[in-house]
């Protein structure tokens, strides 16, 4: 019994049951497969988190984001600038108690180098309803090359507890049709 010492003193020489052996082999191979699949996804998959990150003082990061926002602000929503960077460029987003700033406007199918960092505590970048979730640390500037694949309005919520206002911390990303395509659609509409 499991509560008494093994009957065979030399228990490590006992044969293994066949059913156990088969299961061990299956489980081991499955483990190997799962191990290999993570590696494979770096080659076949389009969703792999970049390791690129830099140490940065929060105040320096804030300055960078403000400069970026100043350059590309197109309008305001509820007093928050909506920033539309050119496709393929660097985009800066910050998390702080308790908002994501600024609001971004991106184009579908275009890639952006999104920089994310926090000015104070840890935050959780959670893009909804897409459900992409990335941890945001103060002092670390994380760079992710992101390509939106759908058009619409997306919420950013915070999913790392950051104090009493945590549940009020939100932000937004608008994704529009690419410029050329939108113009073509307009022309088409005018032609009619």
């Amino acid at each position: 019994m499991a509560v008494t010492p093994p009957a065979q003193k030399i228990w490590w020489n006992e044969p293994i049951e066949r059913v156990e052996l088969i299961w061990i082999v299956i489980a081991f191979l499955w483990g190997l497969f799962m191990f290999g699949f993570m590696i494979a996804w770096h080659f076949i998959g389009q969703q792999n988190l970049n390791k690129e990150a830099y140490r940065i003082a929060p105040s320096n990061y804030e300055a960078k984001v403000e400069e970026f926002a100043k350059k590309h602000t197109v309008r305001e929503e509820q007093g928050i600038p909506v920033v539309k960077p050119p496709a393929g460029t660097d985009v800066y987003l910050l998390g702080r108690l308790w908002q994501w700033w600024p609001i971004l406007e991106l184009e579908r199918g275009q890639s952006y180098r999104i920089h994310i960092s926090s000015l104070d505590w840890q935050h959780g970048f959670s893009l909804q309803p897409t459900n992409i979730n990335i941890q945001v640390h103060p002092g670390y500037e994380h760079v992710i090359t992101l390509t939106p694949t759908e058009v619409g309005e997306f919420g950013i919520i915070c999913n790392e507890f950051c104090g009493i206002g945590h549940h009020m911390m939100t932000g937004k990303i608008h994704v529009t049709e690419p410029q050329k395509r939108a113009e073509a659609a307009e022309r088409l509409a005018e032609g009619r």
Partner: protein
Amino acid sequence: MTAETVVGVAGKADAEYRTCQYTGLKVDIAAQTLIKANAVAAVVFLMLGGIMGLLVALTRWPAVHLLPAEWFYLALTGHGANVLLFWIIFFEIAVLYFASAILLNCRLAAPKFAWVGFVLMVAGALLANVTVLQGESSVMFTSYPPMQAKPNFYLSLILFAVGALIGCAVFFATLVIAKEEGTYQGSIPLVTFGALTAAIIAVFTIASGAIILIPTWLWSLGWISDIDPLMYKVVWWAMGHSSQQINVSAHVSIWYLIAALLLGAKPLSEKVSRTAFFMYILFLQLASAHHLLAEPGMTASWKIVNTSYMMYLAVLGSMVHGLTVPGAIEAAQRRNGYTKGAFEWLRKAPWGNPAFAGMFLSLVMFGFIGGISGVVLGTEQLNVLMHNTIYVPGHFHGTVVAGTTLAFMAVTYLVLPLIFQREVIWPKLAKLQPYLFGIGAAGISLFMMGAGTLGVPRRHWDMTFSDAPVSFAHSAGAFLMMGLNGIFAVVAALGGAIFVLVVVGTVLFGKKVTSGHKLTFPLHAGGGAAAGHYGSHPTVKLPGTIILVTIFFTCFVLYYFINWKYLSELWLFR
């Protein structure tokens, strides 16, 4: 103090024994008293943490939304500390003393020293509760810097950990004594081996905790200027996740223990089961990396090596137990005469005995809910789908509530007659208890996982974002999931309340078990006889178990690939 000097202090002659009327084993009175004290403390903190958990769930139930925000975050911090640390570790110390002194027929090493550990643990647990209830320490179980709690919050955890470390030392010293005094022949029993695994992982865990919590405490006192948040997470999770592996080792040992005591089950092969435990020691610590998959600056190779537990060798350990535990039960039941078809052994198992019912539900739910979701959650790329969503608590309620807590509750129904020597009061209520708690735990796990898949964040007071300047709305499905989570939390809380009621009632008012007394939940008729001849089980035909693991494996593979499908539909990022 080394184990040797402790042995010297305790002295051979000091120990007092009684003889167990069921097993004929010698029971060291000092060990028995310590087991009782630790078990009672465990149940007290389970009750406290359980109430806090219910308040949290009722607040997250959108239609109820019970607590104000400040109290919600406070209760959530207290819930984590009380159930994940205090309930489980007090109980585990009791398990360590049982698996050493009682199972090895030996006296406990240095009982006075063990009492010092107990007092430290109680002091730590009380201080933690007082500090959290004072407010200003609502930093959650993880207490990630730069968010800061009051210094006493960190100090309380350090005190508790030192106490637990003393408990482990007493356990190791008892193993040494048993070996030296020859209280058993050959190797230690499998259950003791599993407990040893748990204790070894506990030492690693507590060391990691000390490395991170002591500087953090000094930081909160203003003696250290800065704690790097990323470094904190790496080391903190060496404690945070490894401590969950103590639980796994402990509750797997309990599965074997209950199967042995109730059904006379023997391991199919000692070698396989022990190797599976040993794999936990070698590979589980790597799991701390699971918590850093969405962090900046970690390379893919670092993530893959660590999160795969070095090619999933620890998962392999659990999958082996997933076959050998039901396999041992099936073999024992077939020997007990239940040989018809593939499942007579399971149908005619003692489902009316809460120890068996709780144990088997724990086994199934730990594997299907906690285990599968854990592997998916811990896969490098898939993690981005669920990181910090309420899927995460969904997963660990599957492991720690449906798995560990239910297994601990189940074994309590054996501890009451064997150690407290009391007959369980309200046996009918006790019969229902594991089912109520099990169904509740399964419900909360599954619905939190469902809500997390829909993006609902964890540790979040208001999923309607009604006060947020930039509005956002979750889907109706997410609200439904959180509502169902609330309903099942009430069911689980009811099961938990019955457990506390039955245990406290039994300890205080249960009929004293005397010689020749029949237990309310008798050990299986075959159990006693089987105790005479032990060793690996000779039966080879286990059709029921083969069917069960095949179902398990199919679910695992399907669920794994469904999540890759979800991932492939996300925006592209690299």
